[in-house]
């Protein structure tokens, strides 16, 4: 597996050095592997922190900045950060207005954030509320699984909740907006290739040239099943069918349609996919209010994409349109 790295053990810390050098408006705590907004804690503002395994860039560090996250904790590749990091970030962004933890629903992430919230309660007076994202319809949400995974909706939630916090809303109000976003979003992904964790050095799973993996997550974990390689218009149906069956999108005022690249698929293919997605949505009577196309929540060099739909009302749309200035999302400023 060819990679632009030095030592596999140094990938995360060296990438953080690059982020610090490229984005002087951010502040990087290299010891705790935390990326902060340069002016954190922003006075009077609810602090938003997230974090997770590395390898999903630009998530989460690329979404730190005005109108989005106040801090992001970077774990090892595909491994949740540890509670010490979230605790440190919580203290670092609290201005007295409380801190929202945005957690993707993975067993490790949830446990480590839980321990961090317990420590924050025991060691500091910081008020912490956690919101968990679980939008992946590929996973059955039942007693027999760890529950649906948090994927594409996490990006949209960090933007929309970030805007709510930037307006000066309270912790309870920001958490409420965040939960509404999660409840109204659904995602589904597909892989054309696997990906290689630097420390492992070889692809996590084998995928023949003639097949694709449906229902993948963002950690190179295999999906639900494999099907023969198909044209993009069929792939769009594979992804949208379960999403449209899971939630009524046609009756919504509008949706944000998000075609996300998994890391190894070029933008030309993502736009081609977006065309197929928009065509199906039009036929299904779903009104697209806004779109987002690009690699925003990735799985290293995996080729493939995911589709996320989010039902939005006027308020969520205004928050989506509000100014944002981060390395990966930037408009209105």
């Amino acid at each position: 597996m060819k990679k632009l790295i030095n030592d596999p053990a140094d990938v995360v810390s060296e990438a953080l050095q690059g982020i610090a050098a490229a984005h002087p408006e951010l502040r990087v705590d290299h010891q705790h592997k935390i990326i902060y907004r340069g002016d954190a804690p922003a006075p009077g503002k609810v602090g938003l922190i997230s974090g997770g395994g590395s390898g999903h860039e630009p998530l989460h560090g690329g979404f730190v900045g005005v109108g989005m996250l106040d801090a992001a904790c970077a774990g090892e590749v595909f491994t949740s950060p540890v509670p010490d990091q979230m605790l440190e970030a919580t203290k670092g962004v609290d201005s007295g207005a409380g801190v929202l933890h945005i957690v993707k629903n993975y067993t490790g992430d949830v446990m480590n954030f839980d321990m961090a919230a317990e420590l924050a309660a025991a060691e500091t007076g910081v008020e912490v509320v956690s919101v968990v994202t679980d939008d992946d319809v590929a996973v059955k949400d039942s007693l027999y699984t760890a529950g649906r995974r948090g994927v594409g909706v996490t990006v949209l939630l960090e933007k929309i909740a970030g805007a709510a916090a930037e307006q000066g809303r309270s912790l309870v109000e920001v958490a409420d907006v965040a939960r509404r976003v999660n409840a109204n979003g659904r995602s589904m992904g597909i892989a054309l290739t696997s990906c290689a964790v630097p420390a492992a050095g070889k692809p996590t799973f084998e995928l023949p040239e003639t097949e694709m993996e449906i229902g993948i997550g963002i950690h190179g974990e295999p999906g639900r099943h494999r099907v023969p390689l198909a044209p993009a218009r069929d792939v769009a149906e594979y992804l949208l069918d379960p999403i449209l069956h899971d939630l009524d999108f046609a009756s919504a005022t509008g949706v944000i349609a998000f075609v996300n690249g998994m890391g190894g698929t070029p933008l030309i293919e993502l736009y081609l996919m977006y065309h197929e997605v928009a065509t199906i949505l039009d036929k299904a009577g779903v009104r697209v209010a806004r779109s987002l196309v690009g690699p925003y929540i990735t799985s290293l060099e995996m080729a493939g994409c995911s589709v996320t739909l989010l039902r939005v009302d006027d308020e969520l749309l205004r928050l989506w349109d509000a100014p944002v200035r981060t390395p990966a999302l930037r408009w209105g400023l």
Partner: protein
Amino acid sequence: MTALVDVEALDRWIREFAGQVAAHKELLTQLDAAIGDADHGANMDRGMTAVVAALDGSWPANAALLLKQVGMTLVSTVGGASGPLYGTFFLRMATASGEVTALDGQAFAKALRAGLEGVVSRGKAEAGDKTMYDALAPAVEALEGTLSAAAPLTEAPTEAPTEAPTEALTEALRSATRAAEDGRDATIAMLARKGRASYLGERSVGHQDPGATSAALLVAAAATALAQS
């Protein structure tokens, strides 16, 4: 009853486990690649290497301090699900052990039971979910069962009062190791219901659980290290 597991023996157990994890790092990662995300070997090895480094630089005065140091180091260095789960296991063991310089067999078994309960409360796993619980729980049961079966004998007057309990614990840890390994092997046929492997549904069947595999190493390390007492 004679004290069998002193701080030095606990230290040997942890170092033996670290050695076992390092020796089986590739295997743990391969097992995780099949049904998870290919990081269990690297994560556990990073954590246990940090644990050994922490133990090298300190001389814990009692069982609680040593086990707490192990738990805190794992929580702070492993990440993923294994960090909180193994970390909580040792932190609960520390609380159950108390600030004593040595544990007898029963007290050691009681501490392991407390650790197991910590894993359950943190991870919400049940028997048959295809997790580390499926190796740890049978091991703790076997340890308790063998020790209580041996207890009447050790209480009887004997010429060599210190040997009988040592043998009883050694035998109990051997049976615990067999139970852990049987439990680990039984995960192959299980359908995962917790953690990342649960996303695979039916496709998780036929693969040995990496967490159960490292948990079996933990029990085997106890048998190896404490038999040297």
